[in-house]
């Protein structure tokens, strides 16, 4: 029973990655324009013979289905193809830049968690909560690039505390991470606070208080766990914000990283890199969803397959 469920789960994950890869392949085949032109650069006036030989070399003259099968079989072997622009294997392009983005994402996530938790748990009293919820609303509604620019003009240009650009050391990580973290913290804080407030109104919270439990114990032993459940549903959104934020923030702060690679690949129509990033993102999301599911099970013992009718009752 358990073995079958794991198997089904893994199969489901593979289907999502396969679907993303297929969608990427199909959609990018629909892109107008000749990839060979992209490879050679707009200015280069290559002879038709040269173009034809390159096309044959890349397998672009084959029927679509053949291209698709060879694309998939290369994917399975971990071969994402070669960048048109950089003339490097896509895996190398992603691998070189992954570290920077991971660093940024991890720092942003940590900051967001700290801010959100502090805001949800420590802020008490109607007035303070009111002020905090307005701040959260502002953080959620502000475009990340604007937050980045405001932080830059205040803390880098104005006060000179942090460097304006680059990626060396902790100093250069603070403002970019803050830029991504603030909107995430806004949403997360809101969900956590609502979750805590909802849990506080549940009968079990009354029972706990009737046992003499104080506010700290109530939050740590009871309500925070309940608030974590809706917060977990945000995991996908948060990872999305981290990756999407990276595209903008790396551009604003002139940092290296996957976001820059993605942006360059999109503006230059470097299709293998775009496909590689799509498949990479799909893998990240599948893994995140798996972690979220495991976390749900760890938090909530009630999760179990429900009793179902033998025939569909719908």
């Amino acid at each position: 029973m358990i073995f079958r469920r794991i198997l089904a789960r893994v199969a489901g994950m593979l289907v999502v990655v396969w679907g993303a890869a297929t969608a990427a392949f199909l959609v990018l085949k629909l892109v107008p324009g000749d990839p060979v032109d992209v490879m050679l650069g707009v200015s280069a006036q290559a002879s038709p013979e040269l173009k034809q030989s390159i096309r044959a070399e890349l397998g672009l003259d084959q029927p679509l289905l053949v291209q698709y099968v060879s694309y998939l079989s290369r994917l399975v072997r971990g071969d994402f193809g070669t960048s048109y622009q950089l003339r490097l294997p896509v895996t190398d392009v992603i691998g070189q830049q992954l570290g920077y983005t991971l660093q940024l994402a991890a720092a942003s996530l940590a900051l967001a968690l700290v801010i959100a938790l502090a805001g949800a748990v420590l802020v008490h009293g109607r007035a303070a909560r009111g002020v905090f919820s307005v701040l959260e609303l502002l953080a959620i509604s502000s475009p990340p690039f604007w937050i980045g620019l405001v932080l830059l003009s205040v803390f880098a240009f104005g006060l000179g505390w942090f460097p304006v650009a680059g990626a060396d050391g902790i100093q250069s990580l603070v403002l970019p991470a803050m830029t991504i973290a603030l909107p995430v913290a806004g949403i997360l804080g809101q969900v956590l606070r609502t979750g805590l407030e909802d849990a506080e109104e549940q009968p079990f919270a009354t029972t706990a208080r009737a046992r003499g439990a104080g506010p700290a114990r109530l939050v740590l032993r009871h309500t925070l766990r309940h608030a974590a459940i809706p917060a977990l549903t945000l995991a996908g959104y948060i990872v999305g914000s981290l990756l999407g934020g990276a595209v903008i923030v790396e551009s604003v702060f002139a940092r290296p990283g996957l976001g820059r690679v993605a942006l360059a690949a999109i503006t230059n129509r470097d299709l293998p890199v775009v496909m590689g990033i799509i498949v990479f993102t799909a893998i990240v999301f599948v893994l995140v969803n798996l972690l979220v599911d495991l976390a749900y099970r760890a938090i909530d013992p009630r999760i179990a397959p429900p009793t179902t009718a033998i025939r569909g009752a719908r």
Partner: protein
Amino acid sequence: MRARLRGRLGLISAALFLVVVIVMAIAPWIFTPIDPLTTDTSQILQSPGWGHPFGTDQTGRDVFTRVVYGASYSLGVGAGATAAALIVGVVVGTLVGLAPRVVDGVAMRGVEILLAFPEFLIALFAIAVLGPGPINVAVAVGVAALPAYIRVARAETLVVRRSGYVEAAKGMGMHPLRVAVSHVVPNTLRPLGVIATIGIGTTIVAAAGLSFLGLGPQDPTPEWGLLLSGGRNLLGQAWWVAFFPGAMITLTVVSATVVGRRLRRAREGRRS
């Protein structure tokens, strides 16, 4: 009592602000006599003050005027893309929700694959396919918003479909088509309308983000994301060039969110 008044005040100012922005989008000339594209070399990088409330940029264009004229694009994209995504989402989501289980299962796996990607990345990928440009930005953010609407429309359809009142209607011998028209669709649309109000904000931010990255309209078009992008190289000397367009986006999105949440609360209050 005081909290209630404060909430009221917030709601009223949010609604008023939205009205002002809408008027800006339709008739920008009401707010400013200056042309958004006119450069004035005698007025380069003036800080905010009389005559130029938001200052001027490096070619002496009035930032306030450009922000006012930028409303039409941002709001147009926000409303247009959201409306399109909403309509397609409701049609697809409702059909999927009412369809047999097999169709529903296959369709939802597809939507889940799309939902696996963050909206902004989908928009970016869409731009990769369509190529940069102002219209393509609108299409891209619309496409990016679509999966969420499909999912919510389907989920709401299922909730309504399993509700006591749909069962009651069935129990009275009502034809399924009539049940769908008089109960399922109206009750599904209600929450979606509320979500879309908030969604307009998300769409505006996403569209401005793509413009900011240089994938949308190009200079000298006044567009909020583009204005911001233009101001980023001037941050050290002229913060106002980037600040005011960004503040405008934030205030618009905040207002849409406040109004949307108020609608949602009103709806939930009626249910309980």
